[in-house]
């Protein structure tokens, strides 16, 4: 393994082993057996469904309650917010899906009072869409552009560099003008 290439991204010189860039597990973690009530967010793809079924079995074995969050991806945030409003302390969150769904669910979970140890995720589609926030107009764009790639901002139209810096609170990668230094 070429350690230098592994550590240093070509564009930014950013350390790639220790950034805020999330490394969502691509295998399904077991649910927290200590939890009493698990909110489940799962994408429509087969792998996510399989994870949901496996978590359901684990919940049953642990005599815990599993509450599926039945919402389309855009509505997941609002549904979770409502479910968390009056939730008991034993509540946990399980998410299986692409990065866009995970980012939404995690941000809504944190805003609703969960903390990172209360949340378990399974990234089932690493090639799927990811959210990027434009630091200039603050619109969030969902794109399949990989980290370090360039996509157009859905808000202001500028070309954004998808930077390896992720905010769980916002639920998005940092995006900034990719060609600011070349502007006239």
């Amino acid at each position, binding site marked *: 393994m070429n350690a230098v290439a592994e550590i240093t991204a070509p564009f930014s*010189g*950013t*350390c790639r082993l220790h950034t*805020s860039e999330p490394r969502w597990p691509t295998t399904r973690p077991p649910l927290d057996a200590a939890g009493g009530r698990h909110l489940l967010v799962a994408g429509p793809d087969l792998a996510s469904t399989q994870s949901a079924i496996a978590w359901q079995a684990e919940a049953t074995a642990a005599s815990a309650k599993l509450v599926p969050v039945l919402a389309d991806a855009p509505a997941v945030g609002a549904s979770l917010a409502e479910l968390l409003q009056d939730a008991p302390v034993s509540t946990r969150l399980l998410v299986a899906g692409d990065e866009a769904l995970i980012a939404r669910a995690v941000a809504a979970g944190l805003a609703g009072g969960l903390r*990172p140890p209360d949340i378990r995720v399974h990234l089932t589609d690493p090639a799927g869409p990811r959210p990027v926030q434009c630091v200039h107009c603050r619109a969030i764009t969902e794109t399949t552009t990989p980290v370090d790639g360039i996509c157009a901002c859905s808000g202001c139209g500028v070309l954004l560099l998808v930077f390896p810096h992720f905010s769980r609170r916002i639920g998005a990668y940092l995006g900034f*003008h990719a060609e600011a230094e070349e502007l006239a």
Partner: protein
Amino acid sequence: MSSTIDPSTALPARITRFPFPFVRDTYRYSANVQAAPAPEVTAAGGWGDVIVEVDEHYLAELSERDRILTHDPARSITLPHMAEAVWDAVLFMLQELHAAQPDLTRLRIDGDRVHWENDLCGTSIDFVIGDASTLPADPLTWLGTQVQEDICLLDQREGALWLDAGLVTFPADWSIAFDVGMSFLEFHGPVPRVHEAGVMPAAEQFLMRLTPEQAYRRTNWTLTIDRRMDVSTEEYPVWGRDRRLLTLDEVPSRVHLRVEVQHLIRLPVSGAVMFLIRTSMLPLEEVVLIPEWAQRTRDVIAELPDDMADYKGIIRYRHLVVQWLDGHLARAS
């Protein structure tokens, strides 16, 4: 070359009190913390005897902060659980500003009631600690109308520090609006090298053990083209092109050595860690008035490894800086 400055030259305070950051001919990231306040002697004079510093740019920088916040209020953000920490910060900063400027400020604290007068900017106000409605803005934003420092407040929980409030209008290429809510290790994620060296976990451990009895400080530095306080990531499309367009003859007047004096303070009631960032800038034409500074700045910038020069945003024009400093040093010898 003489190593002392003739006191009769009467250099302005922006030079004599400039926190020149280079203590060696090379620069690497380190925790470089030391107890504060503590006077630091430089080749031009000294700094560091107070925590809250007022300089000739006071009114201009407060007015610039006001302009930035009007344009982008998201540069000041207080997550709900940080209200107590902000009140701690208000009291700490007013007390320190009063200690540094006893003749121009008056502070009276009677229980929860505070009377504050600041002749530097013509403020006279009575407010109640814990009652934000007694201030003309949210407390953190209001505090930013009294001091030049940018202010970050970190909550300590779950074995880590969390950047949960901040008023940052003068950032060196980062965004408080994006980074708020992140852990200490997360918001330092983009900094190269420090992770391999274990600097950041050690620094976080250090901060988590701070007590209210002893403040600490460190310095950080970069170069900025023009005296532009707001080189935020938000404004990158405004200032980024200067890195490409800079010419050799513009280097002495436009390139500034930008130094952040960062104070690290445990606040007493909230237990939050306050991170003050005070930015000072000096154009290279003034830096080189001090011969030691000219040589040292040249050596550090010439030697800086590419990844660090890239992170600091100077890789595109540092050859011009070194070329100009070399020319200056040749002429001066």
